[in-house]
Structure formats: C-alpha cells, structure tokens
C-alpha cells in the first residue's frame, strides 16, 4: 500500500522486496509498509531510520499447508540479501487466500 517508489535507476528497498516476494510467492496481495520512522530512536539503527523496519502482509496460495514458522522462513529466505544489507526487522502477516477471507 505504501511501497515507496525508487527514483532513477536505483530501486528502494521496498521496491526490491516487492520484486522478490511477488514473483516467488505469486502473491494475491502484497502490502509492504516502511515503518522505520517508528524505530528511529532504536539503539540498533545506526545512522538513519531509513528502510530498516517494514510491515509485510502477503496473501498467497503458496502458503497452503505451511506452518507459520515455515511461511515466515520462506519470506526471510527470499529477503536474505536485504537482511544482510541493512534491513533490521520485518513484521510478517502471511496468509492463504482462504484464511484471509478473500
């Protein structure tokens, strides 16, 4: 919903995450919200509160039959590069189309 748009050729982290998650999960719904500002005072955020904390909501039939841990692992694995380059924390909601009521 609030995915930030990259300017020029360099994509924002949100846009990069959207690309990685959308294709791999074939998501029906993919909401990525940058909430880094909420953690601006966090000791772990070094220089700026930029693109460090996100809320991610994804609805995908690929989650069928997967436990919550498994679903979160899928998202973590897809975002591994981001986690190794400044992404500090993500809050994940991972549901199947049936569970989300859609």
């Amino acid at each position, binding site marked *: 919903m609030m995915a930030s748009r990259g300017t020029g050729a360099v994509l924002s982290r949100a846009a990069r995450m959207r690309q990685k998650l959308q294709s791999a999960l074939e998501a029906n719904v993919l909401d990525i919200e940058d909430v880094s500002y909420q953690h601006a005072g966090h000791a772990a955020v070094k220089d700026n509160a930029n693109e460090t904390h996100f809320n991610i909501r994804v609805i995908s039939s690929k989650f069928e039959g997967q436990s*919550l841990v498994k679903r*979160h*692992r899928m998202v*973590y694995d897809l975002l591994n590069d981001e986690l190794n380059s400044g992404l500090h*924390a993500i809050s994940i909601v991972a549901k199947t189309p049936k569970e989300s009521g859609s």
Partner: protein
Amino acid sequence: MATASAVAVTQNTNQRSGGATREYRIRSLARSAARLSFFSSVSGGASDHRTADFRRADSPAVPQPASQQFMKYSSGLGGDSSANGDSSSTRLAADPDTHQDFQPTSKSSNMSFDDIVARDIKENPVLIYMKGYPDAPRCGFSALAVKVLKTYDVPITGRDILGDLKLKESVKAHTNWPTFPQVFIKGEFVGGSDIILDMHQASELIVPSFHYQKGQLKDILGDIAQKGEQNESS
C-alpha cells in the same frame, strides 16, 4: 507488530540490569533445583558443573571468577563493555552496511555455546532469546512476545542476546532464523513475536491441523502452567 515499540524503547533505557537481576533471583526461587543452581551462581554459589561449563565456553585471555563469567553470559552486566567492544569490532571487520544482527554466523567456533543453547532449550519449558530481560525488554518485539507469554501462568526463562554476541550467533545458527525474539516451548522453536501473538489471538477460522487453532497457545502452555503451580507450592 509491536506498536508499543517506541514506548518500550524510551522506558527501558532507564532500566538497567540491576533491577532485572534482582527480579530474576526472586523468580528463580520458585523454579526447579537445576535451574536454582544456574541462577544462584549470580550471587556466587554455583555448582561446579555449571561453572565449569561457562569457564570453558568463554575461554577469556584473563581468567575471570566463575560468577562474573556467568553474569557476562546471562545478564550482560559485567559484559556490557566487552560485549560492546566485541560488536563494534565485529561490525568494523565485516561489511559496514550489514547490521550486526545479520552478520554471518560460524558454527565451528562456537561448539560449547551450541551445547549450552541445546541444553537451555531442552531444560526450560518456556525459553525466549530476546533483547533485554523479561522484566526489562530492550526491544518492542521482545517486549510484545514476553507480554503475550506472561498472560499464561507459566515460568518464563529469558536470555539476553544483546550482552553476548557468541550466544546470539549460536542461537541464530541453531534455528536458522535471522531475528529476535525467538521463543521455544517444550524444546521446540515456535517462532518470533508475530507468530506468538498470532497463536495467542487465534484466527476467526478453524484452519487445518497443521496450522493453529483457536487458543492453541493456551493448549501447549496449559500443562506447563499446572507444573509451575506444583513447583511453586512445594
């Protein structure tokens, strides 16, 4: 996600570990004998077996008293300066863009820590690797996980991973999970704060058995609560 995160951060910067350690001692009196010796080493009365483990695990250049080593592991009091020293040197050595939470872990150099972690997971019915302590969390997500677990009448064992980089690496290698908190219930990794909150709130739908059902956290914590009551009354 924890909307209380901002509140938790500001209020916990004033709560150093002194108060939390006292809380731990009070709580530990109600626990089993094995765990009692574990915590009593904070005041210097450790059993030799546990002390020896930590001495070996830490292998410092300068020998430290066992109780002080233990405090470094569990409370981060004495270990704050060295832990910060560790983390900043690690950060400089690795990619400066990489947050220290996500730096690569190396299993081979932490064998004894892996043993400690494995035993911790096995021996504590509810175990949370977190930032800070159950009574003084230092992160909104950790605070949320503790808050949820506290609504159940179960003993909660917390381990602060901020005070010990080796411990943090060891836990992350164990679960292959990149974030904290990490909650273990009856020896099994259950998930982070999102999952714990989800299981607590339960969904409106009845979903298949491999997913959670209404009140599942209550189910799996239920028998721990009963055991806890027995221990505390005896």
